[in-house]
Every structure is written in structure tokens, then in C-alpha cells.
């Protein structure tokens, strides 16, 4: 057996408590405890909110897309009222006015927010850095096909590229085209094909051989 003795310190990731206890942290603790003590909010409500925030991510959007691919009635609801479609499968995008954009052979939708970084957080999580970059925001409304090509998405001239500038109160979820060869797959399997970037519209969904 190898005789192993420690000659060197292990790389050490600081613990939560190793950071400074800043004024803001103190303020948060004081305010939280006071709100609970005065019965303005309850501990249970707080935990529910934490959980909801932690649950934000592209797996939510992917569930919607996979269901739209497999259930025509759900796709119809997505077209008419995408916020209701989110709620109907237990997602609670409370503040969201959602519009679903279907990618087809005729139309390719891609989303940007030129003014800031509006993004459907509950369904896609935090936006990627490139989505917030000035380069993406200014270039995709000017030369969308060039930007899409940089993501590896090359579209024929016969496909209309439709850029959506999320400039005010609506939020957008792209429904990518259903990959060929995925017929008969379950919703859970289909959801694996739906990436965050495909729901922004810069790339297609994964091909089945990419899984």
C-alpha cells in the first residue's frame, strides 16, 4: 500500500463564512428577522420563494417545448397564450407576459433585448453573458444572418429571419423545430434535445445523434 503523508496543503475553497460579514449582509439578516417577527412574511413563504428562484432554468422552457412538440392541444395553447401554457404545467412565471415563437422552414425567430437584457428568467434561468454583450445586442438587429452563422446556424434565403427586440413588457420563448428522427419519443426524452440557446433562437435544437 502506498504510504501517503501530507507534505503540502490542499487547495482550499473559502467557506461561506470566510468572506467579510458586510453591512448589506447584516441589513438582510436584520430585515428578514424583523419581517418574520412582525408577521409581515412567514418563514415558509420565504423558503417557497428561495425554491422558486433556485428552480429557474432552461429545464422549464425545455419542458414546454417538448410538450408543444408532442401535444397539439398544448401547442395551440402556446400560440394563443404562452403564459397560460406555462402555468398549466405547474410553472409559475408570475410576472411574465410570454409569447412563444415557432421556428419553421418558413420563419426563423431569434430574440434580443437591444436596450438592456430582458429575458424570460423563470423559463431559461439567468441570461448568458453573450446575450448581454453590446456586440450581440447591436449586431443581431443589423446583420442577423451573420450573427446566426457565427453560432453555426446557416439559413437559406427562402427562410425569413425574424428578429424580436424584447424592448418592453413581453418576454419570448423560441420553440425550435423538432429534430428529425425523434418521432415517438417521450416528452422527457424530447426535452433533452432542447437547449437554452435553441430557445433564444441562435441555434436549432440538438440533433438526435448529438445526445
Amino acid at each position, binding site marked *: 500500500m502506498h504510504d501517503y503523508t501530507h507534505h503540502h496543503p490542499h487547495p482550499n475553497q473559502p467557506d461561506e463564512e470566510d468572506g467579510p460579514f458586510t453591512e448589506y449582509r447584516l441589513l438582510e439578516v436584520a430585515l428578514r428577522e424583523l419581517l418574520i417577527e412582525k408577521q409581515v412574511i412567514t418563514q415558509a413563504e420565504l423558503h417557497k420563494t428561495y425554491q422558486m428562484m433556485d428552480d429557474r432554468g432552461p429545464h422549464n422552457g425545455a419542458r414546454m417545448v417538448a410538450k408543444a412538440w408532442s401535444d397539439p392541444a398544448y401547442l395551440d395553447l402556446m400560440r394563443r397564450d404562452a403564459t397560460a401554457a406555462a402555468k398549466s404545467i405547474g410553472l409559475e412565471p408570475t410576472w411574465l*407576459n410570454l409569447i412563444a415563437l415557432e421556428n419553421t422552414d418558413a420563419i426563423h425567430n431569434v430574440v434580443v433585448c*437591444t*436596450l438592456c437584457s430582458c429575458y424570460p428568467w423563470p423559463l431559461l434561468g439567468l441570461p448568458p453573458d453573450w446575450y448581454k454583450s453590446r456586440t450581440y445586442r447591436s449586431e443581431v*438587429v*443589423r*446583420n*442577423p*444572418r451573420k450573427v446566426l452563422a457565427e453560432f453555426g446556424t446557416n439559413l437559406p*434565403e*427562402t*427562410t*425569413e*429571419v*425574424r*428578429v*424580436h*427586440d*424584447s*424592448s*418592453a*413588457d*413581453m418576454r419570448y420563448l423560441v420553440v425550435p423545430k423538432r429534430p428529425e428522427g425523434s418521432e415517438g419519443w417521450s416528452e422527457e426524452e424530447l426535452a433533452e434535445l432542447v437547449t437554452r440557446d435553441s430557445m433564444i433562437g441562435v441555434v436549432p435544437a440538438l440533433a438526435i445523434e448529438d445526445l
Partner: protein
Amino acid sequence: MTDPMFSVGDKVRIRDAYPIGHCRTPFYTRGITGKIERHCGNFANPEELAYRRDGQPAVPLYRVRLPMRQMWPDYTGAPLDTLEVEIFEHWLEPDD
């Protein structure tokens, strides 16, 4: 609720105006004509909200579809490419 002044398919021009203060009409869309894609509902006026006022009465918000070629005369993509943007009613005028 204020009734929307425009209907789906109406031709509109986004005002070519440059007032001071906060607004949510991107510069590159100003002066461009397009068509109403939908009325999204009425929303608090962001130009008021930005200064901590209540933004009421709510203003009709539309999605307007603009042809890329009109916005960018040297656009090199396909002629059928478009852009859709959300514009508040007071930024729109009928395009006859």
C-alpha cells in the same frame, strides 16, 4: 382601460422623435414604417415609471413588424427578413 387606437395589420410609423428622459423606443426603429402585429395589452408607461411615478393610465403596447431592408438600406440578408419590436401607442402615428 384605454382602447387601442390601432388594429392588427394597420400601417404605422414609429415617431422620429428624440425627447430627453427614459423611453423604450430603440433609436434604430425611429422614423421606420411597419405593420401592427398585435396589441399586447396596456402597460404602465415606462417613461413615467423611470421617475418613480405610477405610469397610469396604462398605455396600449403593440408589436410592430418592420422590414429589415427599410431599416437598413444596405441590408445584405434576404429581402423578406423582418424585425418585431414592442412600441407604446404614443410613439406611433398612422402611415397613410
